């Protein structure tokens, strides 16, 4: 009973989170109709699809996961629900249980008590004795290190999962995956003749071709150097734009999370510390110092104008406009940027004689301590868009700041992603 109540609550929170997200213009819109037809067209390759119990079925779209795993010295006890489309980052320090969690979702790790539902299909419900082994779960898994089969060429690696998965109306064709990941030139090669970045691209294409209804990434960039990482990220962004399935992305890199994720599940010591849409969750100041020095918000903006004389572009977002270095993108293109709390300073009056270009009006919502006692973290609201500012405790008092104070946020740097 308590559990059921909790589930209903979780669902409510999830739904509220979504509304908030679509209001903020951050989440991709949900195409419910498309989803429904997608599911109908898919032939299960083993037995009948197990449907959720009525209590769960109220909200068929999305991924619901609950796992309890006990290891000597480490307990994983997690419960989260995320949207049925887009990238959800499982973020946390090493040892927080994020990889174990991902492996449990894949069925590679056996939970003592687990529940997993993917867009209306139950893959695991230990209380009902349901457990689909990994090979019966329609998922794609990209491992951290090169996991290509050494005895097969790139082409045969790609075909391995393709041959073994049932066709579906929306499945990705070979040529498409090859084009998305830009691996046409590699097809005849053997895995040992590929660079680390190329291997990961092939591994991603191979996962896609297995016609997944859920894509799992276990720190796919962790084994690569910075240059290779930068090489792969655009491909992941491309997947994000094209795919209509949920993706779980394990990472301990705040940059990757800020760049790719729509949704965030923050793990700490085997538990979910926070979960929600990326923008909102990043702007929370009540969380354990997961991002610490990297605290900051992510803003989805649209290119609103170019100033060629000064080599600047104007980005419009809910809270105002930001000027950044001239972007080689058309007016109206969407773009994601990140503003670190450490790059935001606060002014009670608009400083018209400042060299800082980006000055935005905002209201103080709340304040919290940081792990450095000299600083405080201030949450601001800029006409609906959350911002974070890290200022010294001394400034907080000397400016007599308090919740509800209307002030000007000076933004020293904007990190651009796309």
């Amino acid at each position, binding site marked *: 009973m308590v559990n059921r109540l909790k589930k209903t609550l979780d669902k409510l929170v999830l739904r509220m989170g979504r509304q908030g997200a679509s209001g903020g213009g951050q989440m991709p819109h949900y195409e419910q109709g498309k989803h429904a037809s997608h599911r109908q067209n898919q032939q299960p390759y083993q037995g009948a699809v197990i449907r959720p119990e009525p209590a769960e079925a109220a909200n068929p779209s999305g991924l619901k996961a609950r796992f309890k795993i006990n290891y000597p010295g480490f307990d994983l006890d997690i419960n989260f629900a995320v949207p049925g489309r887009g990238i959800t980052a499982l973020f946390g320090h090493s040892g927080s249980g994020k990889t174990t969690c991902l492996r449990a979702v894949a069925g590679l790790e056996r939970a003592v008590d687990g529940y997993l539902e993917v867009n209306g299909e139950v893959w695991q419900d230990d209380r009902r004795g349901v457990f689909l082994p*990994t*090979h019966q779960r329609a998922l794609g*898994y990209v*491992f951290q290190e090169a*996991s290509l*089969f*050494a005895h097969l060429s790139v082409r045969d690696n790609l075909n*391995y*999962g393709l041959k073994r998965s049932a066709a579906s109306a929306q499945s990705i064709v070979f040529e498409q995956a090859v084009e998305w990941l830009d691996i046409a030139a590699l097809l005849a090669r053997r895995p040992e003749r590929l660079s680390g970045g190329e291997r990961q691209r092939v591994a991603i294409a191979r996962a896609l071709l*297995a016609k997944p209804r859920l894509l799992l990434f276990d720190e796919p960039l962790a084994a690569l150097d910075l240059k290779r990482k930068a090489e792969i990220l655009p491909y992941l962004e491309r997947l994000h734009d094209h795919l209509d399935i949920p993706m779980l992305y394990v990472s301990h890199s705040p940059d990757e999370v800020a760049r790719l994720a729509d949704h965030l599940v923050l793990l700490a010591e085997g538990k979910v510390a926070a979960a929600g849409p990326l923008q909102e969750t990043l702007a929370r100041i009540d969380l354990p110092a997961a991002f610490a020095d990297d605290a900051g918000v992510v803003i989805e903006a649209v290119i609103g104008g170019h100033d060629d004389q000064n080599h600047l572009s104007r980005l419009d977002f809910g809270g105002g406009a930001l000027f950044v270095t001239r972007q080689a993108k058309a007016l109206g293109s969407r773009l994601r940027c990140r503003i670190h709390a450490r790059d935001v300073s606060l002014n009670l009056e608009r400083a018209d004689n400042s060299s800082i270009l980006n000055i935005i009006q905002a209201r103080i919502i709340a304040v919290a301590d940081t792990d450095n006692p000299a600083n405080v973290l201030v949450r601001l609201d800029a006409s609906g868009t959350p911002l974070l500012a890290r200022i010294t405790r001394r400034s907080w008092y000397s400016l007599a700041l308090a919740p509800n104070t209307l002030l000007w946020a000076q933004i020293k740097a904007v990190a651009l992603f796309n």
Partner: protein
Amino acid sequence: MLSEADLATLLLTLKVASISTILLLVFGTPIAWWLVRTPSRWRGVVNTLVALPLVLPPTVLGFYLLVLMGPRGPVGQLTAQLGLGTLPFTFGGIIVASVLYSLPFVVQPLQTAFAAIGARPLEVAATLRANPLDTFFSVVVPLTRHGFMTATVLGFAHTVGEFGVVLMVGGNIPDKTRVVSVQIYNHVEAMEYAQAHWLAACLLVFAFAVLLLLYGLNPKQGKH
């Protein structure tokens, strides 16, 4: 030169070794797989049992097999009831003995090869919809083909070279259980050194060729 009887023993030896090798691969592969992947506490015991023929004198193994498979032994009574008769001093009997005697030579290289590839390729295959059996044939076998090669060659060669177990279980019956090693013994007993030389030379060349092949095919194993 080789007499007709000598040729018959050579032929019989090849027949015994071929059939034994096939059976060794059929039974040895799942045993090796189980030994590598099981969390069972019986692992150590089974591992030891498989390795026993390495250290036991072949006569000891032969003696127990004789007792077990004889008309009063439990295996013998079972085979008799099944209408198969008893196995000692038959072709079937030396096949059973050969398989048991050469088991570690097949299981251990396979075990090493299976352990070397680790669990990751199996997990990858599972995430690509391959069921465990499919995974075994499409991923494990190709990745461990050197292990299979070593196991096959060692199993075959070791069966060709056995003597004690065959003598105990099979006796010395022409065309049925008289293999090359037994025939060499017969020649030496009869002071027919020339004929013993011919057969011994055959085995020597065979053994050399086999090992050369093994190390040539499998340079990594050769460095031990």
